[in-house]
């Protein structure tokens, strides 16, 4: 299997991108990434687009071919990768596969979503359409799964409600220093706890916003990256897995089996463990998810993640910084872009180019979650300086 490198990374401004549509956003990130990697469009063998719902949200399908034309990458092979909220992570997996297998020498992955032209209710419904019919007819949404799980977690592990607010406070604080983030303002625990209820016991500040944005990564072999002389990071481990489609069919709703399974695959491939990870980007679509993932990835014992947050372990200057980018919570969550943007942040960190967000790191981990833990990709990257 060919060793895989990432030699280019980019992301657009996340937020409300008035007048710009999926075509514009994908092209912007794609162009920036090619420039960052110093790769010409005609060098691309494969071009992948991670996107959940451009057809449903915007009425635009066929986006990979559209992007290939706009980037002058024809005749590159294209495919769209939809794995709901983890489309970006699944795209990383597909791009890694393309290089590792030798099917492609140079692969560009662009993830993006245009969402803010839809009302919150409409966007929520598009996302909730991933659910089983017996769930959908009850009006269940991803936020309501989060409320159900948060209540059970707090009750089972005797965790204080404030600990969830502290995740939001931390990630907002990190987002202040991310020029691409949707929100760049600090909040305090009281503001989070006093915000409107969305899915009791969770409130507005426990949830990520609806976002437009795009991010991109350029993959090639480590050998090719060395020859190009550009800064790069290694993809040393990657794993992907699924859990039940119907959320209530899981034995323990506070455990995400696909996080456990995908991370075990990634750790085995990278020949490392959770204790070796220096910095992580987790899928904090809801604050409770940061607890669940950091436990299911093995960073903390089950039921202990809230204590780590209380003690500042996951702060930027803590022992294990989590979501230095601001996470989905403050950076924003353009569905198909998020898993790609997680890796973008790690590339910045591992290249030592994260500016005020920089932490001391050699190994980074990204965990991208689709549905409510329905499908997950975990990726481990290592610095090459």
């Amino acid at each position, binding site marked *: 299997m060919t060793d895989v490198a990432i030699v280019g990374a980019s992301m657009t401004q996340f937020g409300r991108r008035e007048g710009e549509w999926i075509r514009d956003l994908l092209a912007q990130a794609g162009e920036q990434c090619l420039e960052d990697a110093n790769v010409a469009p005609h060098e691309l063998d494969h071009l992948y687009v991670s996107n959940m719902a451009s057809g*449903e949200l915007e009425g635009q399908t066929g986006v990979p071919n559209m992007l290939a034309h706009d980037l002058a990458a024809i005749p590159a092979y294209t495919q769209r990768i939809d794995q709901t909220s983890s489309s970006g992570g699944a795209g990383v997996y597909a791009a890694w596969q393309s290089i590792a297998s030798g099917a492609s020498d140079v692969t560009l992955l662009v993830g993006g979503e245009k969402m803010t032209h839809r009302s*919150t*209710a*409409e966007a*929520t*419904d*598009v996302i*909730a*359409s991933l659910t*089983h*019919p*017996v*769930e*959908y*007819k*009850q*009006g*269940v*949404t991803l*936020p*309501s799964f989060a*409320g*159900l*799980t*948060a*209540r*059970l977690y707090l*009750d089972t592990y005797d965790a204080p409600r404030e600990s969830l607010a502290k995740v939001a406070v931390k990630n907002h604080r990190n987002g202040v220093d991310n020029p691409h983030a949707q929100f760049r303002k600090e909040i305090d625990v009281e503001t989070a706890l006093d915000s*409107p*209820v*969305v*899915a*009791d*016991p*969770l409130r507005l500040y426990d949830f990520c916003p609806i976002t437009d944005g795009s991010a991109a990564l350029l993959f090639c072999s480590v050998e090719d990256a060395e020859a190009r002389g550009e800064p790069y990071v290694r993809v040393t481990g990657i794993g992907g897995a699924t859990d039940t489609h*119907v*959320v*209530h*069919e899981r034995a323990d*709703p506070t455990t995400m089996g696909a996080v456990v399974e995908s991370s075990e695959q990634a750790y085995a491939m990278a020949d490392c463990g959770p204790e070796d990870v220096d910095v992580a980007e987790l899928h904090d679509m809801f604050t409770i998810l940061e607890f669940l993932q950091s436990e299911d990835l093995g960073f903390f014992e089950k039921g202990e993640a809230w204590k780590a947050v209380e003690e500042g372990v996951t702060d930027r200057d803590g022992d294990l910084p989590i979501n230095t980018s601001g996470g989905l919570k403050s950076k924003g969550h353009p569905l198909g872009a998020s898993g790609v943007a997680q890796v973008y942040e790690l590339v910045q960190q591992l290249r030592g180019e994260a500016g005020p967000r920089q932490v001391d790191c050699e190994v980074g981990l990204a965990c991208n979650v689709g549905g409510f833990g329905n499908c997950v990709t975990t990726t481990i990257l290592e610095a090459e300086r």
Partner: protein
Amino acid sequence: MSEDDERHGTDTTHDEDGTDDDRTPFEAVRYADGSLGYPGHPVGPDGSEPVGTVDLSEHTARVVTWTTATSPPPGVRSPNHLAIVEFDVDGEPIRALGQLTTGDVAIGDEVRPVYAAELRDPEAGIRDPESQEWDGYRFEPV
């Protein structure tokens, strides 16, 4: 095989209007290994096919967890009280998710299913109205 004639917990099922009309059963499946599943799938977790059904509307359940959602999608009542509940059918646990008739519940409370002819407006959301059923069961504290 059917266990529809076995009654546990409650004596009968109820509509929200108190009548007892024909309705879709709250149908769980029993797989060959004896485990139960709701909803049914073509095969169970161990790959075996369903061998029978159980009507959960004839049983009570315990609240595993619950929430009140205040920003529902189109066609959904607001607020939308939801719970994951666990039935015990002859010692075999089985869970379901459904709306609650009230937000005044706690983890561990006993609830019973009550039939609702339409849980959300089929015409308002993104899903094709013809693609699935829209009636079903809410949970009411006993």
